[in-house]
């Protein structure tokens, strides 16, 4: 888009010399304003809606700095801890630390194995979770729970949403 082109173009010589450049500036400014508005919208919304996605250990490590803030936490569901009150629709359970980095998952031999190890490991960091709502289908021992919610002062996590993954159901499991 060099300005030489404009001067040489037969069309612009028939018009006033500055008109096309002026007209194009108008569009560049207009476009820039719109793009600026979109970028502003994305930036401010990111700031207002972003939340940490932490493992149990990372959440514990941050201690009181995250109390009351919206965070997402993932962990392995400890089977014996699941308690459900159908009348009150109150679900409580404990999750154990499980790393979500691809390297450690690979070292464990896949997500399913990593979850199984986490539940059996007495040293793994743990987190008590409280959730109001019907017990999800996939709420099972050694499922991976992904929860959005807040950590309370008493150290329990109050989940607003609860997603579960049972990797053995999705990845090709043992064939016997």
């Amino acid at each position: 888009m060099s300005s030489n082109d404009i001067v040489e173009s037969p069309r612009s010589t028939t018009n006033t010399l500055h008109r096309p450049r002026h007209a194009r500036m108008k569009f560049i400014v207009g476009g820039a304003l719109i793009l600026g508005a979109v970028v502003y919208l994305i930036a401010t919304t990111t700031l207002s809606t972003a939340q940490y996605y932490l493992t149990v250990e990372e959440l514990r490590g941050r201690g009181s700095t995250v109390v009351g803030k919206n965070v997402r936490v993932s962990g392995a569901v400890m089977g014996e801890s699941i308690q459900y009150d159908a009348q009150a629709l109150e679900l409580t359970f404990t999750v154990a630390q499980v790393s979500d980095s691809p390297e450690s998952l690979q070292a464990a031999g896949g997500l399913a194995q990593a979850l199984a190890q986490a539940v059996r490991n007495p040293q793994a960091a743990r987190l008590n979770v409280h959730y109001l709502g019907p017990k999800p289908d996939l709420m099972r021992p050694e499922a991976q729970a992904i929860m959005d919610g807040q950590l309370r002062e008493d150290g329990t996590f109050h989940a607003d949403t609860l997603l579960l993954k049972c990797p053995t159901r999705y990845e090709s499991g043992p064939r016997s």
Partner: protein
Amino acid sequence: MLYDLGYFALLISFLLAIYAAGVAVFGAQSQRMPFVESARNAALLVFPLLTLAVLIVVYGLVTLDFNQAYVADVSSRAMSPFLRVTALWGGQQGSVLFWGWMMSGFAATVMIRKWQRDRELMPYVIFVIMGTLAFFVGLSLFITNPFARLWHDPATGEIIAAVFQPVGTMPFISQDGQGLNPLLRHFGMIGHPPTTYIGFTGFVIPYAFAIAALITGKAGEDEWIRTTRRWTLVAWLFLSIGLVLGGRWAYDVLGWGGYWGWDPVENAMLMPWLTGTAFLHSMMIQEKRGMLKVWNIVLIILTYSLSLFGTFITRTGVIGSVHAFSKSAMGPSFLIFVSVTFLGSLLLMFKRLGTLKAEHELDSFLSRESLFLLQNLLFLGITFAVFWGTTFPMISELVTGTKITVGPPFFKKVTGPLFAALVLLMGIAPLFAWRKQAVAKLGRALLIPFIGSVVVMVGATLVHWPQHPYPFALFGLWLVSFVALTTLLEFWRGALARMHSQGENFLAALGHLLSRNRRRYGGYIIHLGVVMMALGVVGDEFFKAETQGTVGVGQSLAVENYTLTFENLRVYPGSDGREIVEATAKLYRDGEYILTLQPRRDFFITQQQPVTVPAVYSTPGEDVYVLLVGWNEISLDSSTFKIYVNPLINWVWAGGLTFIMGTLIAAWTSLEDKRTASYVLRPEAPRPSPAPVGG
């Protein structure tokens, strides 16, 4: 053996694709047509070979050959033969093969149909498509082979999946297969993957022609656009169908009362659709005004790269998703391929910028061109926002070491206003003239829809404000009715003009209007579909109500003006290996009995997986969506229900169907298309014009 045949079909396709890509370019560069012809023949042969491979996989799935690893993974005795066929795209290996097969089919079609017409472009079209195909068939061959067999290693007791017999192992035949994931046994999920793949792979045709046009220096003419216009439309159509089916599947099967969750996998599919929509619009400007040439190339490169990126996200599980996809070893090679495609195409475009000079300048803000440009900017803005939100966890982890996510609220807040602006543009842009629009005339055309929509909004406010004080919802309602009225008025004016000039009655005039201007009025029907969907989204976003609770026999749950009374619960075995728990409950509105609902929970024994089947009372105004989420397992005398009231949700589906119908009309071949060249305004451009680049 049969599976060896399949394997060799894959191997030969792979070699042929590489041969065709290389020889086509060599033939074109050295001007030796026999080489190009040879490349074409090789490329044509890939399709029957891959068809053979697909048929062999399907044969294994239907006849339940459980020595095959893929069959043992996705097929099972309890599945019907039809479901066994659909298992072709129920897993990784089958999906990748299916992808390649579709693409080879499109390649063959375009090479047969357009060979004479686009001779100069064809060698490079072959190069691009066959290069891509070699990559996908290579994935099938070396990383995710559908013909891998199961072997038992007596030394370790392990079962290994491999194409060739590992040393010291014996063939292993599984008793039964895992079967298709029960969640996928739904018409939406049976139709969703193939339509999506057709959409994704279909974009390779316009992309390949664009690249060929760039290489040959012909991208400034619109041969590539005219040749591939219908291909683009069809690819886009299938992507739209895939989106609608996916949404419907989520609504029917996932049991959360919604249809779109801004999950990475959904976003991956939405992005190429968004840029594809922008491309479909801006290519009209190149056809009619010879402008936005660079822009169009950018858009098709983006659309195609995002299609590949979408396949990458869905098939490699790189971004955590609630959807059932496995992680796989394809990740790194796939990412490299997507990056090379995207960056290589952009590099090529920058080298050829000189061939992409615009023939006109933008004249005025108040012209159809500038509104199209604005629309393009908005679509790209939404695409960028979706891309940003989808990849944010990965990027933040790379930059800060901590994963930070943004959820549905982010996507809703950012895309909401942008989509609203798009809907508004959709209503007014068709009324704008090319080059320059007179303001007074525009005002007259918009007056009636404006008054009408304000009346609708005020009426809705008077009725609903006390219970539902949502200013955004009212604005949405105004917007929807304004755009619906402007669009309908276009039909009315067109038909009226025909009635006067041709003396036809209204219906005949409307029919002729449609059949004589398929592109234009098909487009308007698509717009009406979008408006209907927008109405559904407004209803779902602002007026949704829900409740949940556990009730005993004879007890009730209430939400809005509905009451659900629990009658009884029964447990019985169903077909294809499921055990069904079914509640019977009566639904009342304002105390008056409407119907009996039977929400279910099906438990698939082999997969150990429950599937919640909602019972829905569906009307144009709203859906009452009832889920059975728990029960007393011993006495069966109490059940836990979750009830959603989803206002206007059927407008989403009706809008989707209207949308698809409009696209079909716009894409249909008509004699008119061939007789009247579409670029009426072009001759006034002095050719060859040294006018400056405008896009």
